[in-house]
């Protein structure tokens, strides 16, 4: 055994306070985020669908099946593109965080984190960054696919605005995911998260026109508000149904409400 390694802190005295230099603290947040991302990337049950589904669905429904309609109304192509990008932005936050937090809670991982001097909030921040990065990757891959097929209707600043909007837009979805993860058990979480995710995606009118009576109800889904923001961010004039400020307010409300309730639950557990 190597004896040159000192094991205890050299300056330790019972009353000294273990000070954490700021650079070290930043490093801790970084490492946490890095490994959170790696962890999710190495979970194929998560990373495969989150990376592939939006692209596959965009190819099938957004390009192949809607070709005729898009030819009549070029704006529709952009609208559908935004819709699938929104889909890709919701997935990691809602399903990824929802399921992983529930599983990690079951496994005692959160308990261990609390016993350790993990910097406050690093766990949640890392999850959020993970969702943001995945959202950025999905948007980027949609852009690449559309570009390769010659269907890209967006300019570089529009792509930047859309990506930025969606990355920030993952935050309310993370809050919902966290709420699910904080309340459901590990085995129930996938079912619960999908029960929220699937109706929300289909009933907020992202991909196809809804029957009239359902159109009124799209406003109850956060996905609709995020989609409206995405559409606004690329400057599309059609397909805008409510002012962007209201969407921001709704999403902020969703974040505070679900995030707050989730934190409360996690703090108690």
């Amino acid at each position: 055994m190597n004896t040159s390694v000192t094991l205890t802190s050299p300056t330790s005295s019972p009353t000294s306070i273990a000070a954490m230099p700021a650079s070290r603290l930043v490093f801790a947040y970084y490492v946490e985020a890095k490994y959170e991302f790696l962890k999710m990337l190495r979970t194929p049950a998560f990373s495969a669908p989150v990376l592939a589904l939006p692209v596959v669905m965009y190819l099938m429904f957004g390009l192949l099946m809607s070709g005729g309609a898009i030819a009549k109304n070029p704006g529709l192509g952009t609208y559908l593109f935004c819709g699938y990008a929104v889909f890709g932005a919701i997935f990691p936050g809602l399903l990824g965080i929802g399921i992983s937090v529930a599983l990690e809670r079951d496994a005692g991982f959160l308990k261990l984190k609390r016993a350790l001097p993990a910097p406050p909030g690093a766990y949640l921040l890392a999850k959020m960054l993970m969702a943001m990065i995945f959202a950025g990757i999905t948007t980027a891959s949609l852009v690449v696919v559309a570009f390769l097929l010659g269907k890209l209707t967006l300019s570089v600043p529009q792509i930047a605005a859309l990506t930025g909007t969606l990355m920030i837009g993952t935050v309310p979805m993370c809050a919902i995911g966290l709420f699910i993860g904080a309340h459901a058990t590990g085995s129930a979480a996938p079912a619960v998260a999908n029960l929220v995710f699937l109706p929300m995606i289909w009933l907020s009118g992202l991909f196809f026109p809804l029957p009239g009576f359902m159109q009124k109800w799209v406003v109850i889904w956060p996905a609709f508000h995020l989609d409206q923001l995405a559409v606004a961010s690329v400057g599309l004039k059609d397909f805008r149904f409510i002012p962007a400020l209201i969407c921001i307010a709704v999403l902020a409300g969703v974040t505070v409400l679900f995030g707050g309730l989730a934190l409360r639950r996690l703090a108690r557990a």
Partner: protein
Amino acid sequence: MNTENRVHALDAVRAFALLLGLAFHAALSFIPGMPVGVWAIADNSPSPALANAAFVAHLFRMTLFFFIAGYFARLLFHRRGIGGFWSNRALRILVPLIVGWVILFPSISAVWIWGIAKTFGPQALANPPPRPPAPFGAFPLTHLWFLYYLLLLYVALLAVRSIVVAADRNGHVRAAVDKVVRGSLNGYWAALFLGVPVALCLYDLKWWSFFQGIPTPDSNLIPQLASFVGYGIAVMLGWLVHRQPDLLGSIQKRWIGHLVLAAAATAACFWAMRGHPLLSLVPQGTTRITFALAFGVASWSWALAITGVAVQFFAQESRVRRYVADSSYWLYLAHLPIVAAFQVWMAKWPLHWSVKYPLVLLFSLAILLASYHLLVRPTFIGKVLNGRKYPLRAPRKTPEGAIALCADSTKMPVAELRGVTKRFGKVVALDNVDLQVNRGELLAVLGPNGAGKTTAIGLWLGLLAPDQGTVALMGGPPSEIERRRRVGVMMQEVELGRELRVRELLELMGSYYPNSLTPEQAMELTRTTALASRTYSKLSGGQKRQVQFALALCGRPEVLFLDEPTVGLDVQSREAMWAAIRDLIARGCSIVLTTHYLEEAEALADRVVVLARSRVIAAGSVDEMRSIVARRQIVCETTVDAEVVRGWPGVVDSQRDGHRLRVTAFDAEAVVRRLLDADHQLKNLEVRQAGLAEAFTELTKEAA
């Protein structure tokens, strides 16, 4: 939560209110229709959104501030007495008011003149418009009015207090008031109760605009009724809440409700305001009534919501928050001319407000924080404003009293349970347990499953709170992150990141500590280097234990908690872990180890504590334990005298019980031989393990 923590939370609230004021003033030049003169400048990129945000911030920020000020006023009054109170307030409030005004008023005027010249051209200054005659008592207090009103309200508050104390000798009135305050804060009535008088004062104002809210009394020395009542109520409530500090808990519990109420009342304000510009006067009629009421309720529900949030989430002491809280007073005092100067400077820039507003904030905060750090914090100004000064390059901060403790430090226990009881529902996990871990020792906690070993560790790590008694880690509460940075832990049944590799896990865990081992060093010490690039979930049970051990020591802990570390290890790995543990002890690390195995305790421990059925049933050195275990009890029917037997070698005790003799002895075989020699008629001989040994039998049964 103790009062100290609550004070940290309220400190944070006060800082928040002050910094919000800074953000509010930085927004004023972007408000559509803001007349130059009322504010220093109007920006060429006005923003209705920012105006609405500023309106919301202004709704409650001063109410919140005065509420906290009232709380701290009573705290100070009862700590220092009336003389101490006034001399403290004179230094902290009166001196900044006077000195601040002398410096700030000319600088603010200069910025205003610059702004007017920039808007209307220099000739506007040569021919100023005629001014209406100043009313009696007119005085440009500027934003320092809040200090002036604080002093006025202190006088009023202490006057009311002395009247109450004189008139209410048996305390009935105070008890009744306390009851009302408690009742209204144990629900959502407080925001309504307090909002209504505020609304009445506002409703009655002659000149009242939507944006203004409670009028800012910055231009007259005579107390203005609406402001005095509005903020007087806030100071009064703060004072009354400090009379029953547990009420902060009630506010804390209802933070979500208050937030919802605040959002609803704010929405009602906007609804009442619909169709009117933000800066216009409030019309008479229902609009005025609705707006006044919504305003009053909104301001109070915001104030209570934010206080609740702070107590809920920001009660821990944090160095960053401490710094911000200390700096906020200076930041607020000095910000106005600086913020306004940046606004004037940038007013004509062809940029969108969403770029300019953050820039104004960024530039101002940079200057303010630099001035605070260099000119205020280390000097007498910091001492006047915050009661202490910090040297610029501080040696590592040690808490008060550290010097006295250091001499005795080796004797201070690193972890302690004092009279701790912990229940889970009806099950008592620990029953009035005292446990101490001294510096540099290995304490083995032995006991069967369910004896409370893991509970004890959970308490020390701050995962559980005791129902009774005190838990100390490094001489303080384990919930503080600074203490946990000196602790390593190996728990049972925890999954770390299953998908990560061993090396990665060690890097992640090490990043939590200020001065951790590198992953390579940690693996070398625990002989796990071969596992470095293996995925954690693919390891065997024993390998996982070894990795967990490496994770526990990678932060160079002073105290290490090992909860059954060797379960599932083969003999070789166990020996290796024991060697590493001995090595840690030799380097001065203190270790708490729980185990089923007496053998493990014997191999490692300085001291052993036996827990069974939630209590400490024995404690002592390993040798003492061994001797206890070796004792036997001999029972037989004999005529031999108990006194005689007591004198035999190896006999600890001997008692007669009717025909029967009970003997406790180490060397039972020799004693039995001698008894049989002494009495050939001896009958019904029984030899069994004594007291504690039975407990150990139970242990070994459990372990087997």
